[in-house]
């Protein structure tokens, strides 16, 4: 028989290293032709941080994304940005890049204020143009400012770094382990075959509070990838040790989800802006897979009326539990 059930999993996750300083730094230079170079130690391992950091700088400097080049993760030339881990790069390196862009912008504003004869506070930089907020007719192009800077030998270079405000944990585990948290809830629908023990994940709805989705498509990609990894964790992935050695270290005996195992994942991006984040952004990398296994285990229990306390929930485990449950029922009847 096939039985269906639904389950929910919720989580919070601290962004950055637990109760430890974990700073990130960046350099930004605006060149004469208004293109921008960013140097950052942030390693993009596919999550899209290079794109996101370029977007953040573009937004801050009022230039196009295509005019930004990012030199990243080269310990020979880029400033330390810490690890790509703890879902921290958008939040921490994002802030570092934003601050570096702001510091480059100071030079632009100073020069602009001088040329336009208005106070710096009155200026806004957008679309390669510096305008007075009080009188929009007072304006100068970024190109002109860069030319003036070149004339008098001023380079438009900024640097910035950011370290999330944390406090180490005391003996009782009290402190401020993280400067900000990601939140998520996932809902999963499964179908369990009681003859074979096979579990089919039919639907996943994954709602994630990311502060601000700097790049919504990349956020979706993280959520989809994370929930599928979470499904693997729930249903099939298990490292088997023998005498301290991993005995299933190949794709033929350590199974991960293939394209045939994936459910339809519906992402819901929740944007509750984080005041300390770059344009309100936090992180989403790991949070995407944290609630999935819980939601799946709950859905299976909803379908079968049996709780599982150990992962992965394999077809063997399902069949064994069904058998035990049957026997207990029988015994109870006989009694």
């Amino acid at each position: 028989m096939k039985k269906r059930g639904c389950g929910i999993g919720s989580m919070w996750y601290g962004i950055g290293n637990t109760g430890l300083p974990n700073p990130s730094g960046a350099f930004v230079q605006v060149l004469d032709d208004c293109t921008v170079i960013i140097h950052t130690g942030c390693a993009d391992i596919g999550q899209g941080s290079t794109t996101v950091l370029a977007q953040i700088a573009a937004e801050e400097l009022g230039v196009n994304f295509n005019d930004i080049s990012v030199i990243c993760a080269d310990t020979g030339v880029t400033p330390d940005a810490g690890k790509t881990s703890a879902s921290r790069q958008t939040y921490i390196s994002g802030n570092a890049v934003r601050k570096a862009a702001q510091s480059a912008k100071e030079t632009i504003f100073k020069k602009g204020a001088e040329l336009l004869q208005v106070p710096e506070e009155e200026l806004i930089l957008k679309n390669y143009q510096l305008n007075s907020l009080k009188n929009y007719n007072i304006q100068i192009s970024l190109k002109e400012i860069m030319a003036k800077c070149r004339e008098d030998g001023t380079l438009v270079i900024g640097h910035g770094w950011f370290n999330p405000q944390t406090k180490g944990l005391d003996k009782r585990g009290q402190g401020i382990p993280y400067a900000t948290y990601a939140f998520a809830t996932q809902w999963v629908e499964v179908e369990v075959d009681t003859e074979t023990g096979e579990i089919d994940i039919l639907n996943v709805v994954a709602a994630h509070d990311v502060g601000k989705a700097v790049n919504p498509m990349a956020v979706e990609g993280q959520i989809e990838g994370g929930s599928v990894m979470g499904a693997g964790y729930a249903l099939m992935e298990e490292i088997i040790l023998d005498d301290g050695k991993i005995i299933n270290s190949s794709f033929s005996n350590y199974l991960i989800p293939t394209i045939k195992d994936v459910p339809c994942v519906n992402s819901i991006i929740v944007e509750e802006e984080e005041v300390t984040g770059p344009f309100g952004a936090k992180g989403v990398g790991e949070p995407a897979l944290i609630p999935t296994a819980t939601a799946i285990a709950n859905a299976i229990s909803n379908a079968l009326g049996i709780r599982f306390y150990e992962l992965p929930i394999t077809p063997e485990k399902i069949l064994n539990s069904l058998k035990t449950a049957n026997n207990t029922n029988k015994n109870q009847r006989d009694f």
Partner: protein
Amino acid sequence: MKLEVLQFELNARKVSVRVKPDATLLDVLREDLDLTGAKRGCGEGECGACTVLIDGMPVDSCIYPALKAAGKNIETIEGLGTEDNLHPVQKAFLDEGAVQCGFCTPGMILTTTALLAKNQSPSEEEVKVALSGNLCRCTGYTKIINAVKVAARNINKL
């Protein structure tokens, strides 16, 4: 070990290369011909990262003896499109966000190309069957499936 001469057609060009008799096609492509688009994920025919097209069919080049390629027509990701002139499948993968770390991407794209050459409008199930030998750890596959559908639509429009 004595080297043997191997000749085949690679990305529409004739090549001749001296190879060890026990070399795999992946070894020859990556080490001798400097084509590093095909990746070594597992080296045992499980992940599809090393996929190339041999006479139009997707094959795991990590377990394909190089000498068996003699006289055959081999296509790798390097032969598919150029940076300025992407193949429609490559373009669809980029547009749909179907690439994260990129390790599976060359294999995914070549397998998709072979599928679309045979079947111009595959159903979702047919896409899944065709790509079931290509593992991806990053994307969760959702955007890859979308990209294949978009590529099919765009190719049909050409």
